């Protein structure tokens, strides 16, 4: 289980996260929502090591993640995507995914320089694995094309494929549906469900309420750097604090 306790992040005088605590249950799909500037991406950055929190603790299965570098956190099975589309632009889709498989390879410098025979077998296995993942996100027809040449929606799928290649146990998706058409969002929602079925815990930040309410088991609402509500989608939709956060102050207080 991924547990966040009293997480605080301050940038100089600005408090991005005040004291945030939540748990992400294994094999659940948990969404973090909230107005712009609520601290959603900041929380992601702190969990995945891109940002050193000012205070608080983040643990996965009881082991502390706080203070580890992003690559070390990835090695523990916590893998993220980014809010702004983030692929290896000059590489083909296939090479993007092969790069994502980095941790699956074992070849060290000496083995590579000596040209060990078993490396050929390893490379072959990785290529097969990459093909499976590319097939899973439905980009088989784009395998050889440079990621930067793909339309936006497909680049986001490449991003998902790269993250999946890193064999996550917890997958953090930062606005996977942003900028996508309705039908593309349906595809992504379907993929997220299938990823969960394979035993992966999914934590996502998303603005599209239809998508969030459609796929989440639990929704966590952030506002002004703190958790204001947490619960099942239906309960969240009816929560008075959430409605106030999204629609502004109610009529009687103005």
């Amino acid at each position, binding site marked *: 289980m991924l547990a966040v306790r009293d997480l605080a992040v301050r940038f100089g005088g600005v408090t991005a996260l005040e004291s945030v605590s939540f748990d992400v249950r294994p094999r659940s799909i948990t969404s973090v929502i909230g107005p712009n500037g609520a601290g959603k991406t900041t929380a992601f950055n702190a969990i995945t090591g891109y940002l050193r929190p000012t205070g608080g603790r983040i643990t996965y299965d009881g082991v502390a993640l706080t203070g580890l570098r992003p690559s070390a956190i*990835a090695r523990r099975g916590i893998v993220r995507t980014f809010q702004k589309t983030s692929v290896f632009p*000059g590489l083909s889709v296939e090479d993007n995914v092969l*790069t994502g498989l980095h941790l699956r390879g074992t070849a060290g410098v000496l083995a590579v320089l000596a040209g060990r025979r078993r490396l050929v077998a390893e490379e072959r296995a990785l290529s097969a694995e990459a093909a499976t993942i590319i097939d899973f996100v439905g980009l088989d027809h784009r395998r050889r094309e440079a990621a930067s040449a793909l339309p936006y929606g497909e680049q986001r799928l490449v991003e998902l494929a790269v993250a999946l290649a890193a064999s996550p146990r917890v997958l953090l998706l930062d606005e996977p549906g942003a900028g996508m058409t309705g039908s593309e969002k349906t595809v992504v929602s379907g993929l997220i469900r299938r990823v969960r079925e394979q035993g992966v815990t999914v934590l996502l930040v998303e603005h599209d309420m239809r998508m969030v309410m459609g796929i989440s088991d639990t929704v966590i609402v952030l506002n002004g750097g703190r958790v204001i509500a947490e619960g099942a989608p239906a309960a969240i939709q009816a929560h008075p604090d959430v409605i106030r956060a999204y629609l502004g102050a109610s009529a009687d207080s103005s």
Partner: protein
Amino acid sequence: MTRTGGWLLVAGALALPLWLPSPYHLHVAIMAGIFGVLAMSLNLLLGYTGQLSLGHAAFFGIGAYTSALLTLKLDWSFWPALAAAVAVAGAAGFVIGRLALKLRGAYFVLVTISFAGVISLVSVNWIELTNGPLGLPGVPAPELGPWSLRTKTAYYYLVLAAVGLSYLVCRRLVRSRIGRALVALRENEPLAESVGVDVTHYLVLAAVVSAAMAGLGGSLYAHYTRFVSPEVFLFTYTVTMVIMVVAGGKGTLAGPLVGAVLFTALPEALRAAASWQWQMLAYGVLLVLLVFFLPRGIVPRLGVALRRPEPVTPTARR
């Protein structure tokens, strides 16, 4: 490049001394080979990892001095001195790699330039060790068992072997998960980290291998010219390496070699064709034209022309 084409090139390189009309041409070929090693070394950092080292002459010079000092002062023979040159330059690469870890882009460039500047000053001022600006004459020619590699033909084959070895090292690295990790750092460092690429490890690794290879070039240079002076640290050497890599095609395996041959032969050809002032002018104009019309370099352009693009990306077997 097709496999047959590659082997034809190797055969051509092996037979080259038979065709060349004079020792002077062989000298040009040897220098092209030494610069080939240097350009391949720089390409690992600049082309694949995406970090520009503008102090690369430092590793070259460290290799040259290490080899010269060990053979001259401690009477080491060539081969262990060569190995030591590679090791010492690699160690310097490790230090620079660690120092530069937090730095990217322009800051990395500054650190490497300063490093070369400092090392150069040491070579000029530590007179007891380096003989200062007068340099170290009389660096011995290498020997291989009972044979001396004093002749240009023999030295040509020694350099050719070094080029082959360096090429093989680059190729194996680039086409492995290590090469993919290096390219990932060039393409998108935060994304690379998110899938578990250890930035520290791979930046330092690239710096060490690159510096060690430059040290190999330095040792070969020292035992060829038989003389080492602080001039080996000249910025010109670094600039020449950068031109070779960029013009040939950075991030390709063959690019640096093509660049090295072209930009070693070109000044020599111009020297035969024109007076001094015109040589440099023509060199400059050619360089500008090349960068203007082939911004990605010769090899990637050729790849497109032959409809067999040399993958800028390190994918094994297609």
